[in-house]
């Protein structure tokens, strides 16, 4: 019941906002957004306290993997919505109805993805997340955002179409064994699945959902989309949407591992992971726009997620922890970048200098965010990246560990060059300090606090859930 309500609240409010005449016009129904986000998070918290019974005949259920993604999405959504309270005062969207409706539709779709234990339902939810975000990317309605929306739609739609084919392949692999496409049945009868179809399903689902994650070489939409979408939308995409897509990859990996084909899946995952790291490192050097920079950083972190999954062992735990760390950190940094764009109109190095003087709080958060995102201690990303590195060394893959270290170092240098230049440096003559409203900085500060906490202390229940998720993925806890 709770699971149904969890999906229904945002869905019903989304339909109401899009359909009812009361929501016409530019005004954004912020109070409604906050109430829905808070109710959603409260329900998610209740799932941590007491497990919920599966709903819809087992189609919706909670497991450690899904709960991690669901919680991350819910927290990030609430923070984003609080940020929106401050943001709409300075930069109201052209249509409050489309803005709020799309955000709520995204929350509903992401909840379905996180809870879906029917893999075709997972696909339906995943496609819905893609579509719900498209109007948000197109929010400014100028040429550049048009181009970005088109690329995003075409590339993601083709990717997700391949994932649908992969889902059908999985049904072919299953044949008449157990209830079709239901995760528990697939796992229970994993050894009876047809291996050739299962391999094909894995490849198609990895490429399909990998396109949505933005793994190289399917990442081409990402810098354009994150660069042109409003920063808070980019933050939701880089933090929550990509995590949902990773969940899709994790689900099929779960099945493949249970079928005893882990040795087939792992090299493929590792290849995509290393390629993404290499591509990110190449394009981060010399990047002149903070949002595009963060997009390539997202390619890097998606690479780390599948790398950890591919390495197995503690790597799976590292990936799960990294999923949370990366999601929260991306939300933090993109929201702060949103403040920069609000103040100066752009996120480019050319348009921003010496932000510590004009935007002291945001600039400080941006610099701290740089260190967090690049995996510096004491932030959580250091811990999770180190866990993935340890998995590489434990597994005897010295060259993977070496490549990881080299690309991470290059990425750090590339990111630091741009971010420090924007934040420090001489302010433009005549620049004055801008008042930063509490709404615009409270969310990023809260996210920064959680990421910092995860670097030094992981709460017991979280550790427990992550460990169980890692075991389901064929790995183990630290």
């Amino acid at each position: 019941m709770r699971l149904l309500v969890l999906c229904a609240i945002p869905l019903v409010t989304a339909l109401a906002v899009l359909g009812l005449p009361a929501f016409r016009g530019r005004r954004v129904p912020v109070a409604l957004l906050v109430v829905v986000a808070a109710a959603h998070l409260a329900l998610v918290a209740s799932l941590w306290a007491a497990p919920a019974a599966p709903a819809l005949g087992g189609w919706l259920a909670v497991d450690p993997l899904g709960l991690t993604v669901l919680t991350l999405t819910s927290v990030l959504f609430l923070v984003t919505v609080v940020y929106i309270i401050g943001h709409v005062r300075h930069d109201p969207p052209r249509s409050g109805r489309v803005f709020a409706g799309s955000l709520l539709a995204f929350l509903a779709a992401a909840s379905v993805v996180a809870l879906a234990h029917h893999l075709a339902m997972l696909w339906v939810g995943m496609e819905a997340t893609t579509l719900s975000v498209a109007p948000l990317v197109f929010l400014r309605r100028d040429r550049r955002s048009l181009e970005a929306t088109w690329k995003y739609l075409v590339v993601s739609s083709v990717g997700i179409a391949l994932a649908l084919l992969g889902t059908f392949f999985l049904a072919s692999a299953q044949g008449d064994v157990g209830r079709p496409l239901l995760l528990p049945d697939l796992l229970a009868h994993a050894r009876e699945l047809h291996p050739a179809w299962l391999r094909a399903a894995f490849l198609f689902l990895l490429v399909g959902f990998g396109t949505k994650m933005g793994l190289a070489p399917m990442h081409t939409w990402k810098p354009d989309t994150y660069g042109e979408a409003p920063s808070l939308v980019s933050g939701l995409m880089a933090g929550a949407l990509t995590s949902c897509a990773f969940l899709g990859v994790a689900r099929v990996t779960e099945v493949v591992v249970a079928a005893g084909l882990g040795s087939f899946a792992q090299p493929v995952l590792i290849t995509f992971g290393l390629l993404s790291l290499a591509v990110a490192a190449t394009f981060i050097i010399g990047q002149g726009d903070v949002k595009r920079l963060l997009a390539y950083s997202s390619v890097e972190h998606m690479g780390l997620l599948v790398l950890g999954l591919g390495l197995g062992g503690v790597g799976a735990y590292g990936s799960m922890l990294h999923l949370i760390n990366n999601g929260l950190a991306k939300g933090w940094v993109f929201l702060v970048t949103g403040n920069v764009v609000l103040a100066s109109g752009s996120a480019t190095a050319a348009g921003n200098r010496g932000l510590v003087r004009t935007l002291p709080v945001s600039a400080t958060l941006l610099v701290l965010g740089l260190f967090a995102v690049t995996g510096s201690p004491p932030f959580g990303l250091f811990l999770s990246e180190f866990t993935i590195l340890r998995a590489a060394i434990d597994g005897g893959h010295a060259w993977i560990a070496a490549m990881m270290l080299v690309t991470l170092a290059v990425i750090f240098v590339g990111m630091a060059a741009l971010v420090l230049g924007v934040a420090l440096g001489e302010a433009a003559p005549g620049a004055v300090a801008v008042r930063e409203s509490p709404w615009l900085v409270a969310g990023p500060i809260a996210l920064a606090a959680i990421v910092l906490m995860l670097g030094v202390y992981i709460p017991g229940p979280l550790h427990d859930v992550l460990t169980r998720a890692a075991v389901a993925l064929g790995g183990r806890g630290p």
Partner: protein
Amino acid sequence: MRGAAQIVLLLVVLSDLAVLGTSRLSSCIRGIAAQGLLLGLLPLLIAPQLSVHAVGLALGTVIVKAVVLPWFLAWAIREAAVRREIEPLVGFIASQLLGALAVALAFAIASRLPLPAMPQPLLVPVSLATLIIGFIVLTTRRKALVQVVGYLILENGIYLFGLTQTESVPFLIELGVLLDVFVGVFIMGIVVFHINREFDSLDSTRLTELTD
């Protein structure tokens, strides 16, 4: 019934090739509408007996793929006053040759797949051929609107493969898939409409402002 289904599947391939060979946007859309209608007939012809599931799927498919989406795309052309030629990156004859190659390839692949014995041996090869031809249309046509048609053909190919799994994919999910395709094409259509207004052209190769 089996014979009828075979004929419909062959007509699907012909509609693929027709879209590849046409130089006019309007016939391209008529092609995709015809294909939608054929796809709507298939669940009825394939199902061992008429069930609510098969009839519902057939109805939904016809409404979305043969009526609403083609009508919407035709509306977008009219409203945006698009020039009626398709302007391919690869010539029509060459595209049709590629299409024929795709059909041959699809049959070759399908014959090697470890498939259980199926009442409709043509379903999988036709599905793969449609899938590949969708890709060809998507990548070799300049107009954004024709790329939407390519995406629809690609989706149709996957739908055909899905028909091999009708017993295992519940009706609700099929409706969800249809709804997603519908909303997807709808949003793409709106974006296409704006592209035309902003750039005075539906030529997606002009979308080149965003680079590193």
